[in-house]
């Protein structure tokens, strides 16, 4: 059975200390002041040597003969499960710890490193990886992964209107993207669109292009106002006849497996497991705050923790925390043994943990009463932030259909 090792606990304590010293005191600035999260995230990376580790891992990966495999080993390669477990578990610790105070930071970081850089690393040529991915992995540059459009959300590929048209050896890109994490500030954007060859839209190939901020015809909007996740800047992207060479087409080929749709689905699976780690951090923090409040807040002459209806909330929060932690541990164990969760398993994990986070954070607001509704007590922010976990990385309704379809296929 997996459990956090002594080293992982030490890392947790160190990251928690950093977050409580560097981020928690500046919460209002990040929440209400439009201060982008990147400077403090870079400080986090430098403080713990994550930029150096990213550079070393990048080099190791490129030095491999197949250029792939990553840290978990390539096909048929023997890697000690404990080493694999550590490799999977380690990045989850900063996610959990950041989410205790500022889940938006994780979204900003995850999209830049986990989605944008990962997409370039999995689909790009070696030249493209060196040109764009390394700076993203070290956080020297910020990335955005642009798939969603005003009229294409859950039906990402079916309703996608963004296009690439061939023009000699080059492509002309057009389209609008929305709800793009890091969109307002991204240096590097992976733009997903359909190759328009005059064929029907549902038969068009899906292509990924890499754009740099400031390219002619490429505009990035200011941050959009939203319900929560204020420390993660979200924006729109507008492309008007953006001319790019083949060097910006990921993989430098139009011939991608599954018409380009399968690769994006693999990305969804990773994204969904990250949501569980986020949920755990938010639940853990709420539970900690609620237990403390239940002991200190006195009503009718006794601490409110003495009341059974308050106890019921605390107990349910603890059950949610244990369940989400167990899901995460199971995920780590699966990968530690060289396997991959199915898309349905990743969906189940995302569905349950996001729902648990929403329920726990709202219960925390209720337990705090009027104080819970006030910003000062933090739980209202976590409740607003938690809601997005049910919406992004595939809505929970989409997760349910994935799980059900998987069951019906058996």
């Amino acid at each position, binding site marked *: 059975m997996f459990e956090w090792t002594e080293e992982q606990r030490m890392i947790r304590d160190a990251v928690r200390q950093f977050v409580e010293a560097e981020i928690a005191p500046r919460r209002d600035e990040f929440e209400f002041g439009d201060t982008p999260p990147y400077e403090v995230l870079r400080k986090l990376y430098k403080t713990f*040597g994550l930029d150096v580790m990213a550079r070393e891992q990048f080099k190791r990966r490129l030095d491999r003969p197949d250029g792939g495999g990553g840290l978990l080993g390539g096909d048929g390669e023997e890697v000690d499960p404990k080493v694999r477990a550590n490799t999977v578990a380690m990045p989850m610790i900063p996610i959990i710890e950041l989410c205790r105070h500022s889940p938006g930071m994780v979204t900003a970081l995850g999209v830049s490193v986990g989605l944008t850089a990962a997409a370039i690393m999995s689909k790009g040529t070696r030249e493209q990886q060196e040109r764009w991915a390394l700076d993203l992995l070290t956080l020297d540059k910020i990335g955005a992964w642009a798939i969603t459009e005003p009229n294409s959300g859950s039906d990402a590929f079916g309703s996608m209107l963004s296009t690439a048209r061939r023009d000699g050896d080059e492509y002309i890109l057009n389209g609008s993207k929305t709800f793009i994490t890091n969109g307002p500030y991204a240096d590097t954007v992976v733009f997903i669109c359909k190759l328009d060859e005059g064929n029907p839209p549902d038969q068009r190939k899906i292509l990924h292009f890499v754009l740099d901020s400031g390219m002619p015809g490429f505009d990035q909007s200011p941050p959009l106002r939203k319900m929560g996740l204020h420390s993660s800047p979200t924006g729109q992207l507008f492309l008007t006849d953006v001319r790019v060479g083949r060097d910006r087409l990921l993989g430098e080929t139009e011939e991608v497996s599954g018409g380009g749709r399968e690769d994006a689905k693999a990305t969804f699976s990773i994204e969904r497991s990250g949501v569980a780690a986020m949920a755990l951090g938010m639940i853990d923090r709420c539970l900690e705050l609620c237990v403390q409040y239940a002991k200190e807040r006195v009503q009718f002459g006794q601490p409110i923790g003495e009341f059974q209806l308050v106890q019921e909330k605390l107990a349910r929060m603890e059950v949610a925390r244990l369940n989400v932690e167990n899901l995460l541990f199971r995920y780590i164990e699966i990968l530690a043994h060289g396997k991959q969760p199915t898309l349905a398993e990743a969906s189940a994990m995302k569905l349950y943990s996001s729902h648990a986070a929403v329920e726990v954070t709202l219960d925390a607001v209720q337990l705090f009463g009027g104080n819970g509704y006030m910003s000062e007590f933090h739980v209202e922010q976590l409740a607003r932030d938690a809601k997005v976990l049910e919406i992004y990385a595939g809505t929970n309704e989409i997760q349910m259909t994935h799980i059900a379809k998987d069951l019906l296929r058996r």
Partner: protein
Amino acid sequence: MNVVVCAKQIPDPAAPGELDPNTKTLKREGKLILDDSDAYGVEMGLQLADKAGGGEVTLVSMAPHDEVSGLRTALAMGAAKAILISDDALQGSDSLATAKVLAAAIKRAEPDLVLTATESTDGYTGLLPAQLAELLGWPSITFAKHIEVTDGKAKVQRQTEEGYDEVEAPLPAIVSVTAGVVEPRYPSFKGIMAAKNKPVDQVTVADLGLSADDVGWKGARQEITDVVPAEERKAGEIVEDEGDAHERIVQFLEQLKVI
């Protein structure tokens, strides 16, 4: 330059501490952590070794039950190795007995400089740095807020109530550092992962050539006769305003000699 940092492992101050009713000493049964006040010495030692262009930091610690959790934290920050003295005979050691044990361990490391905190966060005696210096026969400088090592000398700004004194001593020397001396670094992920494999030399009292009679309860020259709860803070005085409240407040402040 080789630096020894005395690193105390103490019960987590965030958890409620408990006294043994018989010995009137702090219970140290559970996991121990690095005393926060020693993190400054570790950081200073690392910076001095780095600046000197060579050498390393060795931790010296005396703790029960082979406890290394606190040492791992300092090793993760960058210390190269540790000497841990753990022996049942050490139970009940007073500060002089502790100084004898640490001095013997420090000699083994043959350092150029020894750094300590000004006092520990659990015992607060503040006696150890001077006792170490006496036992080792080395100069002692206390309350350092800034340290430089040049030409075989430690040049120290020594914190005083008014400001600081500039003092220096030939090496090897014992210097106690304040919390203002440097900002301790966070251990890097790599540092944490490497800490487990760094050497911790576990030794007993006999290994250090000391007699069990010199340490622990037998060797203690200090006896804790009683421990009483700190006096509760008295309730403040409430001044009812009958038109003269401002004068009474001024009088009160004058009595305190703050105006």
